[in-house]
């Protein structure tokens, strides 16, 4: 059976390589090696864009003091060669790169223009990332012609609002009973996630869920003398970091959360909270009333996380 599986993999690989060696069509950009008109020509008709753009960081980098050959093309460094467009009185748009949602320029080509300058650091892993593979355009989240946000040239007023434009359920979760302080402006989605691509799961900034959480909650990092296995594996086993209507962003109410794994005699009476002996199990923090160092203990008697 294993041999068959590897054969299938091999055939798929051969097919992929064969496909890769097929000649690709000339790209639109290759066809568009037409002449450049220069930014002054653009200003003749598109004057209203110049002043707000000049105030932006990108406007300064392109229009005021371009530091690269690419940037020295001014407007055309992003919008493509515009000579034929200018000479046709604006009629010929075949060589232009447009960033409107309904643009005829494929998303990948639009993004490639941005990456020509912004491929370093955070964007190194853009290609192949979750957002890139779903045809998300840079301009779906960013606007560059005027400053709308404090930083990041975002399309919405905040990172949360920008991400929430698509991830509505996550944005709504921030209003739940237990949440992190995103709504208060003290955190952002990018405190944990790398939207431009990450080698890690869920576009996290850390190599795992835990490594991401530890950047602020380093007290949970350990290693401890007594480990709690689900904690070691993933904080997300018990917590919903986007918000929960249970205390401490737990996925389940206590003690049910613990009882999913611990079907022990002394943990079960909470079936009936009106039973007085259930107080210690059902009320306040449930199991954690006694097992207070549930994330791990370095106390020699802490094997059951009570010390």
């Amino acid at each position, binding site marked *: 059976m294993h041999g068959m599986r590897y054969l299938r993999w091999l055939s798929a690989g051969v097919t992929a390589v064969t496909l890769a060696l097929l000649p690709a069509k000339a790209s639109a950009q290759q066809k568009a090696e037409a002449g450049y008109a220069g930014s002054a020509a653009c200003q003749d008709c598109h004057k209203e864009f110049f002043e707000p753009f000049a105030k932006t960081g990108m406007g300064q980098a392109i229009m005021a003091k371009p530091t690269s050959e690419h940037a020295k093309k001014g407007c055309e460094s992003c919008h493509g060669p515009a000579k034929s467009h200018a000479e046709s009185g604006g009629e010929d748009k075949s060589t232009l790169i447009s960033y409107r949602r309904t643009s005829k320029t494929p998303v990948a080509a639009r993004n490639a223009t941005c990456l020509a300058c912004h491929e370093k650091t955070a964007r190194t892993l853009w290609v192949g990332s979750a957002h890139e593979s779903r045809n998300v355009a840079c301009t779906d989240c960013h606007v560059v012609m005027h400053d709308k946000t404090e930083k990041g040239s975002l399309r919405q007023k905040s990172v949360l609002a920008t991400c929430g434009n698509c991830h509505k359920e996550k944005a709504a979760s921030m209003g739940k009973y237990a949440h992190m302080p995103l709504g208060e402006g003290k955190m952002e989605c990018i405190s944990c996630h790398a939207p431009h691509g990450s080698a890690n799961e869920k576009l996290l900034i850390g190599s795992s869920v835990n490594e991401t959480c530890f950047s602020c909650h380093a007290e949970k990092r350990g290693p401890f003398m007594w480990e709690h296995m689900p904690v070691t594996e993933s904080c997300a086993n018990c917590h919903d970091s986007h918000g929960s209507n249970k205390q401490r962003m737990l996925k389940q109410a206590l003690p049910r959360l613990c009882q*999913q794994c611990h079907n*022990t005699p002394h943990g079960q009476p909470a079936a009936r909270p009106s039973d007085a002996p259930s107080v210690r199990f059902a*009320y306040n923090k449930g199991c954690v*009333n006694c097992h207070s160092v549930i994330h791990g203990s370095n106390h020699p008697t802490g094997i059951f996380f009570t010390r």
Partner: protein
Amino acid sequence: MRQMSFATACVLAGVLAVAVPATSQAQAKKTTGTFTAAAEIGARAFTTEPADIDKGKLEEYRSLPAGPLLERARLQYTPADGYGTYQLTLRRLGALDQSMWLQASRPGLYNFNVRYDRIPHLYSSTGRSPGNEGAAALGFNTLPSPRPDSTAWKNAPYIGNIRTIWTPIKATLDYAFSEAADFQANFTTIGKKGGLPKSISFNGSGGPQREYVSPIDETVNNFRVAQSYASGPRTKANFLGDILKSYQGTVALEYSKYNNAITEVMVDNPALSTAAWATTMASSTIWGTNTARVSVAPSNSASTMSFVGAVLLPFRTRVTGSLNTSVQEQNDAYLPQFNNSAMLAAPNVALTALQRPSLQGKVKLTTVNVSATSHPIARLTLGAKYRNHSYSNQTPPDSTLNWARSDRQIDATQQNTEWDPFTKVNTDVSAAYELARNASVAVGYAVEDFTREPGVFAVDGTREKIPRVSLDYSGLSWLSLHSSYTTSQRRFWGHYTESAIEVSGNRKFFMANRDRTRTNVMATITPVDQVSVGLSFQTGDDKYPESRFGMQSDKSTTTGVDIDWTPVSRLSLSAGYARENVDNVTLYRYRAVSTVSSPLFDNPLFYFSSTNKDANTTTFASVNAVLIPDKLTVKATVSVIDGTFHLLNSNYNGSPDGAAAQGATAAQILTAKAEDWPEVSSKLTPVTLAVQYAANANWGFTFRYNSETYTNHNWQQEAPQFTSTGLLGGPAATTWTGNLPGNIGAACTTVGNATCATGQYHFLGNNYNPYKAGWLTFTVSWHPSALPHELGRSTF
């Protein structure tokens, strides 16, 4: 002190900014550059102010004091060449949630940022205690001696807000040596000070148990440097010819140090003021320590190195690889096993000596990623990913020959440390095809292998197979659509011999066999330019088909709609609605004993199911109307954020409730009878109405009214009044009487301690009381266009 110094520097800079004469701040261009200052000051007054005890949720992460306020301020320097940004920004200066940041940047060359924040984390405002809670310097939580009785606990004064203030400072420098090389350095320090409600049981689950204020004095320091290189399009021919189109790489080093200035917390036993111990240990509260020692998180560190590289090959083939390796260490001195002076007389006390003075803890994390994407034909994208993440605990084994159980008893059993190393391997292949302009369909297949060595519980590892399909379309001017469907199967493997007292078939939810589906549809419809409608629909369905007990199913549905309407340029309206429903079902069995031969051990009459029903609804509406262009604007928002959960419990074996199972007494049957939990709900309704008037370019005025109504019903945080606890007399009649007052449960016996008349369970609440608050804020803005953007839920 460091944070104070920084704050002082920022304040001085801000004062300097405001003190610069207005005439010199006008944006007249000078050869030496231009300073621009802006500030917003004003005052806040409550129309309806909640009592301090009720402000818990209102000020959970923020501060809303009445009185004068400096809401926002900025000093900005624009160089003579107009190139670059240099600014100091202040927000809510002097408040518990103040923030300041400094930015200096020259686009394309460097970007330097320092940001200072304070973030309150308020946990409870309803706690009472007759003792001295959280004397932070020593970490002692002391009670009077003799111990207070029940009445004293009930009538004890409120502790006040129990909260921790986080003070993060983050400094970032990005410097571009050249078009190809970038350097980045980050330093983050987070100070955490204050208190946190924590619990301790002195003798075991039977009590006494007490929630106390754990003092917090912690610092997290993270330092990271990274160097990136991007070749850009390569044009020179070399031995790789045209194959290597471009390449990028990043090397990063990171060091993280967590320091806890407090190594332990001493907590007084509410039942005993004198340590007691006897050769024959009865399960009673009369034996044990008068003061217990609790560990707090030990200081630790982590060193991480990472390499990321990417190459662009023909056919837009991009291959990316990364290696991340991290070592985490912890070596704080062990605490003594127990704190019961009377227990020193125990015969086996010598065997409680520890094997070594500290853990010498060391964990190694390694993550390897390789991914590739290619476009063999213009419309086709092929992708493949591989990821290996391993957690290896390399701490030398340790053990205690005898161990102290809750400062009351020495168990003559050896306890050995156990580590839980694991490896998670993810592989993924995908193909996406562009059907038409801005319309693509993608399929993918992923496998996740999770291996634990040695296996834990009944599982050595799991394999999850995850096929998926997605469709993305934005080809029409009025429609943008993203949709995806994922289905997966997770199966465990491994040989495991369960012990006699373990529950057969109780699979842990995170490693049980699971069948999962996820559906996600998201659309943006723009029928006319003035209207935009966003729709989202998501479902999740998890089934645990072979788990006899534990999680059985978990279903969720989320629907959302947003509407933006701009009928005229001066008026914009928005409204939205999102609703999430979650239903999950778990099965349990009640075990009154752990004795295998007992008829109570596995009695189906005692089985019960628990169905958790969550319902979360968020509704909002806002309006922004420009009544006089460039002069008068009115803004209003209202939101209703409603969340509930309800646990419905029932014995599911079909037997009539209350019927006696074989071998069980009526009392035992009654104890095992499942009943529904009361519903838990919370509802927040924030309303904001603001009028903004711009007198001219230099002056603006804002008059804002905020109101918030918060309701909260959580029986777990409220005190039950048991009018009957007799199990033989039928179900206990229970009423809820308000916040947990610090006294629940039967009083302990007075044997061995004359003052042992206190209850066995004492809580600080961990609760947020309902509140209704209204406040007015009037601010004057100077150079409003230069102010930082408003942020946070008390503003727009």
